[in-house]
């Protein structure tokens, strides 16, 4: 086995997921290799979040298996999974608001033994993550004083501090202004290409997905999905079926822009 393709960071085999009697995906075979950026598109309520939570091991699948570097996820401890998979959630709860740096630092939890405290190097990792999302100056602020976009970037800094192989990101561009949105997606692509990470994220903007993702998973509802290279999969037919409105592909400045009609 010296010349085979490297083991995917994350792989699903015949994965079926359902929630509340509704099917999210059926028989999904997905491979996320190091260096890849996967976009997940679909209407509200088709189960994008449910799928991400399942891939993170936070809820059981109906059938099929999820492998992390070839190891079945359900056989790994929660801690081992958290060392390899990071999840950015849509909602952040702060009933007891901590400081910005403390909040980023919780990302180190799976890497620290239970009797240890965060070391100077853990704090360096958290500071670098805050710097990466442009929050360095707010380090000593309480999280309940942040704006929606700042809180979202802090959530991302926590996942970066966690330093997983696989980034599962649920609408990472939520609440972000244009500049931070583009900066952040560029950074994620760089994590994948240069850092050997795998990124899977749900997005609502077809143009961002077309520009930053090499592969796309379209979720049509009722368990129907379509997976493929971005260029192959962004057809007018697929997009119409996906969003329920016709989407025109307009050639502009040497690229393609998708506009709902």
């Amino acid at each position, binding site marked *: 086995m010296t010349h085979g393709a490297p083991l995917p960071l994350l792989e699903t085999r015949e994965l079926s997921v359902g929630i509340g009697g509704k099917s999210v995906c059926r028989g999904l075979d997905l491979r996320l290799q190091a260096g890849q950026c996967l976009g997940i598109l679909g209407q509200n309520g088709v189960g994008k979040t449910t799928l991400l939570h399942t891939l993170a*091991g936070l809820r059981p699948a109906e059938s099929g298996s999820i492998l992390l570097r070839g190891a079945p996820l359900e056989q790994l401890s929660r*801690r081992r*999974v*958290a060392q390899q998979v990071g999840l950015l959630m849509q909602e952040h*709860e702060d009933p*007891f608001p901590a400081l910005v740096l403390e909040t980023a630092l919780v990302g180190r*939890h799976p890497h620290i033994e*239970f009797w240890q405290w965060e070391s100077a190097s853990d704090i360096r990792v958290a500071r670098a993550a805050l710097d990466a999302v442009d929050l360095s100056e707010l380090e000593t602020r309480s999280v309940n004083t942040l704006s929606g976009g700042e809180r979202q970037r802090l959530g991302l800094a926590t996942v970066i501090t966690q330093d997983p192989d696989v980034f599962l990101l649920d609408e990472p561009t939520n609440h972000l202004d244009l500049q931070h949105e583009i900066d952040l997606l560029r950074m994620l692509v760089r994590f994948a290409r240069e850092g050997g990470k795998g990124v899977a994220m749900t997005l609502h903007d077809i143009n961002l997905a077309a520009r930053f993702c090499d592969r796309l998973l379209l979720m049509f509802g009722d368990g129907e999905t379509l997976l493929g290279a971005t260029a192959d999969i962004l057809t007018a037919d697929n997009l119409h079926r996906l969003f329920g409105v016709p989407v025109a592909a307009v050639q502009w400045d040497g690229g393609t822009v998708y506009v709902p009609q």
Partner: protein
Amino acid sequence: MPRVAALPFFGSLLVLVALSFVVALAWGSVPLSPRLVIATLFGGGDEFSRTVVLELRLPRALAAFATGGLLALAGALMQVLLRNPLADPYILGVSGGAAVFALGAIMLGLGGLWIGAGAFAGALTSTFAVFALAHGRGGWTPTRLLLTGVVVAAGWGAVISLMLALGSDGSLRSMLFWLMGDLSHATLPTGGLAVLALGIALAMPFARSLNILARGELQAGALGVAVRPLNIGLYVVASLLTASAVTMAGAIGFVGLVVPHMLRLVTGTDHRRLLPGAVLLGGALLITADTLARSVLAPQQLPVGVVTALIGVPLFLYLLHRARQ
């Protein structure tokens, strides 16, 4: 918001505990000098001071410390379990169950030991009832647990009112004292101190996990915390701590709600500091309150629960006001 470093934080709490002990042992119907109290504690003193300090005042001060520590620790754990800053040790009905059984023992004219046993049995009954009722199909959420606990507590409250209405004039006064919290019958709290030590020993290894659980179950799961066992462990430990506090001293309010918040205002939300800090501050607060309760209107004794609120309310409002600036 300024954060106090670990050494001055724990240092000043330990000084506070030591001071409250010395004052509690020195102050009373027969005042003793602090020097004599300390000498007596270390084997000196005369026969009289040994009787007053070691046999009369020390057991009661230790009982106050244990009760305050138990309640403050239980409150901090309950607030994480329910992800709710308004949670206190009694919110899930533990004290209500204890009160109904304890008041029952008082109405039947039974003695102190039976009242304590009744309180403990009632606390455990209520704990199991809420756990089973909230669980339902597919496990509980904090909201479901909270609602079940609050409703069960309201049910106990109605039974308590009924018992007060039906109680004889003779037993009413001791029933009211029990409900407000009272340490005047306290004995050496070996069991309470053991439960307190056990509780902090069980909770501390999970203190960092609690920091993450406080940010929600999904976040905790995503960061590698085994959420379900931790939730159940929190529930069991917090209930046990509350049950043994209520058994010793009745339903003393306020300490369990406010002490964790006072500490958060001073030192932040890290449970590795919050939990031991809560034990120390809760203990010191209750010793001080009990010293005042037995000496302000001496020989008349006040219910200590009334005094904790009288000290705690302005102290808490001050800290809250300071934190906003």
